């Protein structure tokens, strides 16, 4: 009997060894398919994250693309944000990544440095990237390769719910050159006047906000693979929500905490219970719909040194092409269509952000109305404060947004002093970056 078990064990171990070696062997390599359009029928896959309205507009745009190129068929896949990255990691591991994928700045370095993305310069015959500013284009580069095409830009600003301010009888101060103190003072008045039913605002709590905070302090967040923000500067960023929770701007600690985890429709700003929101300009339309008002406007972010060139055009989303794609030319044609074609630009609108292509942005600004138009024109408002682009989030720091909230929570609930939290956060992120590279 003992021998028999041995036999079974050997068989199992052999099977294990087989599985292990085959799995290890399937590393992802770039395909050597030449970037030349095919005459025959071709099917490519397009994958993105996003909600229902994005599904609708993207399907329309893709249908129009297929009409222009009858030999190309596009299979579409989509999921929510978290599910998208889980899926993309597994697909990439299996050498099965979609031909065209929506990409985010947080994950670009990872996929770019793994060699999973096609250098778009090799497809320049089919894909035009000169419709956008050079500084924006450069934010699609990793290790000197153009691994992503910025599709949209995002600009941070303050979205104001004017209906609330009118009801409370409050008037915004001069917002062209306002400081953080002026912002907080005004936000506090909202909470006080409404007896706490409506809150003034929430402190910024993501990587984009932190990047701008660093720039306003004359620093940067990252330099290549190093975190270079000063601990004191980071500490003041982590301290901000704690101060605003105690002085009333955010209502209370728990209210801030609930808001930082809430979906758009469940957040105070989405429910019309918050006067001002620091976020991306294009969020104005979904927020206005959720809060049931059409009287929203966007004003510039407060600055430490008003008027300084601290803003930059952050790519909202990118399109990337898989380096293992069997049809890179057709994939490039699709990306080109999505970012440069006027018809596509009109169909897609501002749902993914402000179009990176300046012509399309101007066309849209003349054709749309309401909050969409407000968002498109905001780019011109902040033009005087635009500085040079920072380096993109390095590989290993993809969890930056969640990490920021976690350390802010530690400070807000008194688990750590702000400076200790800042030092711990820098150490944690740096370890993660070093590990990944």
């Amino acid at each position, binding site marked *: 009997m003992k021998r028999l078990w041995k036999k079974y064990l050997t068989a199992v171990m052999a099977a294990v060894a087989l599985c292990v070696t085959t799995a290890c062997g399937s590393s992802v390599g770039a395909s050597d398919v030449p970037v030349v359009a095919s005459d025959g029928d071709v099917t490519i896959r397009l994958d993105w994250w996003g909600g229902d309205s994005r599904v609708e507009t993207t399907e329309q745009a893709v249908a129009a693309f297929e009409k222009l190129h009858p030999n190309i068929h596009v299979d579409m896949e989509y999921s929510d944000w978290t599910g998208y990255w889980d899926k993309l990691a597994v697909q990439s591991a299996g050498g099965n990544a979609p031909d065209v994928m929506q990409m985010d700045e947080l994950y670009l370095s990872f996929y770019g440095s793994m060699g999973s993305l096609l250098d778009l310069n090799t497809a320049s015959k089919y894909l035009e990237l000169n419709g956008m500013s050079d500084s924006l284009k450069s934010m699609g580069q990793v290790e000197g390769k153009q691994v992503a095409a910025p599709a949209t830009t995002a600009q941070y600003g303050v979205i104001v719910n004017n209906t609330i301010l009118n009801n409370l009888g409050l008037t915004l101060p001069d917002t062209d050159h306002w400081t953080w103190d002026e912002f907080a003072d005004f936000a506090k008045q909202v909470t006080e006047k409404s007896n706490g039913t409506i809150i003034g605002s929430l402190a910024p709590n993501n990587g984009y906000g932190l990047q701008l905070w660093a720039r306003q302090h004359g620093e940067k967040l990252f330099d290549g693979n190093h975190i270079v923000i000063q601990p004191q500067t980071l500490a003041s960023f982590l301290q901000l929500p704690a101060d605003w929770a105690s002085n009333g701007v955010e209502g209370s600690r728990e209210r801030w905490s*609930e808001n930082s985890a809430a979906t758009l429709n469940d957040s105070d700003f989405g429910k019309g219970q918050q006067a001002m929101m620091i976020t991306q300009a294009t969020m104005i339309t979904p927020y206005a719909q959720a809060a049931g008002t059409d009287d929203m406007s966007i004003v510039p972010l407060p600055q430490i040194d008003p008027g300084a060139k601290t803003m930059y055009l952050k790519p909202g989303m990118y399109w990337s092409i898989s380096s293992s794609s069997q049809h890179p030319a057709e994939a490039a044609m699709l990306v080109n269509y999505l970012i440069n074609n006027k018809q596509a630009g009109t169909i897609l609108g501002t749902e993914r952000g402000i179009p990176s292509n300046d012509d399309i942005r101007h066309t849209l600004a003349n054709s749309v109305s309401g909050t969409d138009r407000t968002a498109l024109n905001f780019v011109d408002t902040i033009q005087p404060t635009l500085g040079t682009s920072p380096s993109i989030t390095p590989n290993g720091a993809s969890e930056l947004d969640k990490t920021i909230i976690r350390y802010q929570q530690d400070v807000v*609930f008194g688990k750590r002093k702000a400076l200790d939290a800042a030092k711990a956060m820098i150490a944690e992120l740096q370890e993660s970056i070093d590990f990944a590279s």
Partner: protein
Amino acid sequence: MCVGNQFGNFGNTDRGSASRLYREWHRANDGDTEQEDIVSSFAEFGVLVNNRHKPKDKPADTKVALGFLAPWLIGAVCLSLIPMLYSLVISFTKYNMIKPPQFVGLMNYRHMIADPRFINSLTVTLTYVIVSVPLQLVAALALAVLLDRGMRGLAFYRSAFYLPSMLGGSVAVAVLWKMVFGADGLFNAFLGIFGIDTTMSWIANPDTANWTLMALHVWQFGSPMVIFLAGLRQIPRELYEAASVDGAGTWRQFRSITLPMLSPIIFFNLVMSVINSFQTFTQAYVVSGGTGGPSDSTLFYTLYLYQQGFASLRMGYASALAWIMVLIVAALTGMNFALSKFWVHYDD
């Protein structure tokens, strides 16, 4: 003599009913018991292999049985056993799912010692297990004893109390929980009845968030309750009659008859509860939006493992965490078995 016979009979039926209970429990906890399924099925497979070589058995039977088992065997080996062993290999590597794994020795295991979030996730999970498991078992036993008195509408109450066990692990209930313990949730409205006005959000405060999840666990007392109820039915009435003739009160009867007679079932419930609650994932994932927040107060071990593997793409570290969890759960179970001889009364 008569009582002695009863004991003897009881002993026999108990063994039969234990396996029935196990099956019942299986049905009740469908989906959570894959490991036990695998373990018990491997045991049965072993029996088959043994039997094959007993001359009195007909070999043809075993072959047919193995044939019928084949789909399961292939599934268990390829989808459970091999990935498990593969994860052991991966735990000694640095692996981000895209680049091939790179052997790093014990680095992942050493990293745990210096990882404050790992230590924190252990603390959070152990607190959860230590608080919620006994509370749940006490609640289940108390209700089982009450229901055992044969009140009218027993079937209805039994189903009503059992219902949360079937729903408690679902995403929908976790979402509901988020609303119940939110700032303007049901719980605060309930407190308002007693004149306690608060806008405290129990979910959003790191000091209370884990307690709301413990409450959710205790609320699912129905499954152990049903098992207790079945166990109570197996205790011979004569014991209580004899005890009351001797002048023992209700409390005394409970302590000296119910508890010892029920102790194997309490033990069974305890072991299963500890194993299951150590693996809690869905509730914390949904309530905290996948972050384990606020301030890592609901960062359960499994949630941290998931984050490391699929968000930070440290598959090697996540695999090491998984194997440490296997060891911890095994140690806890072993400890339970070791301690059981001091309080579990088997009626042989």
